[in-house]
């Protein structure tokens, strides 16, 4: 019924199928490593996090509900959440880091150019309609795991302003995607 292979693997992993676990690992590990590396910015920590993520995949596969979403989306959400847990547990960063990041992020990056097809194309179009600052804040939150406080510092606005920006951006995005 479904051609979501990741979802099929997850269904079998929930029944303790180790072969399915290996197949899932082969299909998803490079992508999840990319997610962890992008958010954590440190290879050793990303490798450590990848072990933890696959441990949780084995233990929690039964919680995945194929009627509500895609297998890969679930996996990436699991990896993002774990990476963000680690980020938030880090001690506060020194001044200056944010300034460096802000500088580095002013240049357009390859990964911001979304693949222009299907759903991705729609989201890309909807992002184009957002004010550039708000779109940048949303991408920073999603791709780099930045918190409201990080984003407020990076865009030099008060935290509540950032919250308003982001919530407006999300509302516009939702309206654009679901006309």
């Amino acid at each position, binding site marked *: 019924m479904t051609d979501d292979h990741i979802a099929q693997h997850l269904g079998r992993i929930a029944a303790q199928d180790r072969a399915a676990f290996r197949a899932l690992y082969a299909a998803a590990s*490079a992508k999840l490593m990319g997610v962890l590396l992008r958010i954590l910015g440190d290879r050793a920590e990303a490798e450590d996090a990848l072990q933890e993520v696959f441990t949780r995949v084995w233990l929690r596969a039964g919680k995945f509900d194929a009627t509500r979403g895609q297998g890969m989306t679930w996996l990436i959400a699991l990896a993002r959440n774990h990476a963000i847990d680690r980020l938030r547990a880090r001690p506060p960063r020194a001044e200056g880091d944010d300034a460096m990041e802000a500088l580095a992020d002013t240049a357009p990056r390859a990964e911001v150019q979304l693949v222009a097809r299907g759903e991705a194309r729609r989201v890309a179009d909807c992002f184009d309609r957002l004010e550039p600052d708000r779109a940048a804040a949303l991408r920073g*939150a999603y*791709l780099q795991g930045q918190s*409201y406080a990080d984003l407020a510092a990076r865009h030099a606005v008060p935290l509540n302003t950032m919250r308003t920006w982001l919530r407006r951006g*999300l*509302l516009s995005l939702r309206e654009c995607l679901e006309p």
Partner: protein
Amino acid sequence: MSEPPIPALPEDDALAAELALGVLEGTERAAAEARLRRDPALMARVIAWQERLAPLNHGFAEAPVPPDMLNRIEARLFPAPAPRRTLWMTLAGLGLAGVTALALVAFLVFSIPPARVEAVLTAENGTLTYDAVFDGLRLTVTRVAGEPAPEGQVHELWIIAPGAAPVSLGLLARGPLVVAYPTPPAGWVLAVTVEPAGGAPEGKPTGPVMMQTEITL
């Protein structure tokens, strides 16, 4: 610049989006995640936002994984049945020949670890006891002595694989806890901590460990 008040992104949907993005921090994040664990409607909204934002996943490039990573993960999840191998090597070392040794090895290889495993968790002062039973498909935890956690607190059950972080199996409230869970290998640990109502805020134990026990087969 005075912008009009935020229009109809209902508060829960905004919170769900914030949870899907992960932009919250500290106590706000902890409170939101605690609510998420007991609010299926909010969870459904979070999943809907994850799907809505999923096309952004194209922004994550794939990255190379060390070649031994799968072995490391499997070693952690599926510890080798060490005693069996030791005995096999002992037999080989002794040079025991013929049918007897073969039969013994066959017996050892084909004997299936017990599906049903029981563990007892007792508080140090002995006033509270939980019985944990793995039947191969489910874990059932029943309070057989003592009282549940007082108002505002809850007992949370954790499983800990060797060298891994604790993973929550659920909250021990008034009735028995039943979760789909395979029988863990020997050496894994069950533990109960005292947590604020709703469970450990960030999925990691925060309260004192009341009791713990190692799985033995």
